[in-house]
């Protein structure tokens, strides 16, 4: 499919396992980001949230004399692009691998999360675009204030449909991570019978942590706790 020599047959990126490794490594980067993103935003629960969030934003923008945030942004963009490329390529390969489907197919081990990875992924991409236009650049925000993330968060989430979209997207993110984090370990060869159950539970626990933390923000705004 690819014409790049790096990705031809017999090469790392041309192989199914190579692409899976790309999925796993970029997935790990994105997972690390959502965990840190959620943890950083927990500062909205500090006693003076508006000041705390503004100084947090100033810190991120000033890190490495302003270069840090662009290193992070470009790194995340590259990770997301490679994640989507590998997913698309593998999905096409997987679809082609069964040209004629079954009249009847019964899943025993697969989960709703595992079977809907590509759909949760596509919906999350649309969420990420909306989220950036909403709370980073402000184009779709009703009253965006520059460098006032707390105020933007509160006024943004006071719109009920927006909050519902955020909450639903976070549920999908949780499903994506619950299957993805365990898959990442399996793809990188970090699997051991003694730790398999633990790893699967840890994946669900980390996914739940990210989801519960993130969902708490719109709920807290709608409940009037953050204002």
């Amino acid at each position: 499919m690819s014409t790049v020599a790096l990705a031809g047959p017999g090469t790392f990126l041309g192989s199914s396992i190579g692409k899976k490794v790309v999925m796993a490594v970029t997935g790990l980067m994105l997972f690390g980001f959502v965990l840190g993103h959620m943890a950083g935003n927990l500062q909205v629960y500090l006693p003076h949230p508006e000041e705390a969030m503004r100084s947090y934003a100033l810190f991120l923008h000033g890190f490495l004399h302003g270069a840090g945030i662009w290193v992070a942004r470009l790194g995340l963009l590259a990770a997301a692009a490679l994640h989507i490329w590998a997913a698309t390529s593998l999905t096409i390969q997987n679809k082609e691998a069964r040209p004629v489907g079954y009249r009847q197919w019964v899943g025993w081990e697969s989960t709703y999360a595992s079977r809907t990875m590509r759909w949760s992924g596509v919906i999350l991409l649309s969420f990420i675009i909306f989220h950036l236009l909403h709370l980073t650049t402000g184009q779709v925000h009703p009253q965006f204030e520059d460098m006032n993330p707390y105020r933007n968060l509160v006024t943004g989430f006071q719109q009920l449909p927006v909050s519902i979209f955020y909450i639903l997207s976070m549920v999908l993110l949780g499903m994506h991570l619950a299957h993805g984090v365990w898959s990442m370990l399996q793809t990188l060869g970090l699997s051991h019978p003694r730790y398999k159950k633990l790893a699967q539970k840890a994946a669900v626990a980390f996914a739940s942590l990210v989801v519960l933390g993130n969902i708490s923000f719109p709920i807290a705004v709608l409940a009037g706790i953050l204002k």
Partner: protein
Amino acid sequence: MGGGTGKNLNLKLHVWRQKGPNVEGQFVTYDAPGISTEMSFLEMLDVVNERLAEKGEEGIAFDHDCREGICGTCGIVIDGRPHGPRPRTTTCQLHMRSFADGDELVLEPWRAKGFPIVKDLMVDRGSLDRIIATGGFITAPTGTIPDANAIPVPKENADIAMDAAACIGCGACVAACPNASAMLFTAAKITHLAMFPQGQPERSSRALRMVAQMDAEGFGSCTNHGECESACPKGIRVEFIARMNADFVVAQVTKGRREAQAGDSSAG
């Protein structure tokens, strides 16, 4: 099956009929009355075929050989499950007591690009043989039989290798996988040789070549559903896929360790 304690079932079968590799197929419905619960699934099909022969109709073609659950030849997707509803059981070892009177069963062949249909429920699994041929071997000196236990093998390694070597190559993993991936099969074959000292010389090239052949045969890739493990009549575990992934990655990043130098023999 004489004088058993079984009872008789009246079944309806929806069977995939396809005359040859590149022709259209369709489901044909057959009544199968008076099927003893003592019969194996394949004996049930034998009875159905005898009745078809008496009517002058062509019998249902299906793969079978040893009928003892060890050769890996048989394989039918029964009601959406490769080898039917019983865990760790091949189609030939599945008995009709697993079904109830009045059941309607859907019989389909393994569905995968890598398993072209030969006829009806028979598929060509030569793709799995070609994967084996690229790396499923070790290099051993010929001559006298070596002393037993001359090469120490840890007991746990031997046990894991035996677990992997239990794979009979039936292809149920491919049939069960939503992506028609042959990674459980390939992983089992890679693991069973990689666990032994005798398997080390080819360990890297084996992982590279078998994975390349697996991809070339048009199989999909693993998305960690785990359907293969539950469908496998020999209980091959998905942990072996992680082991294959690790072997492949190590082989990819370490290949080409020595550059050719002037004075190297070209005679090899």
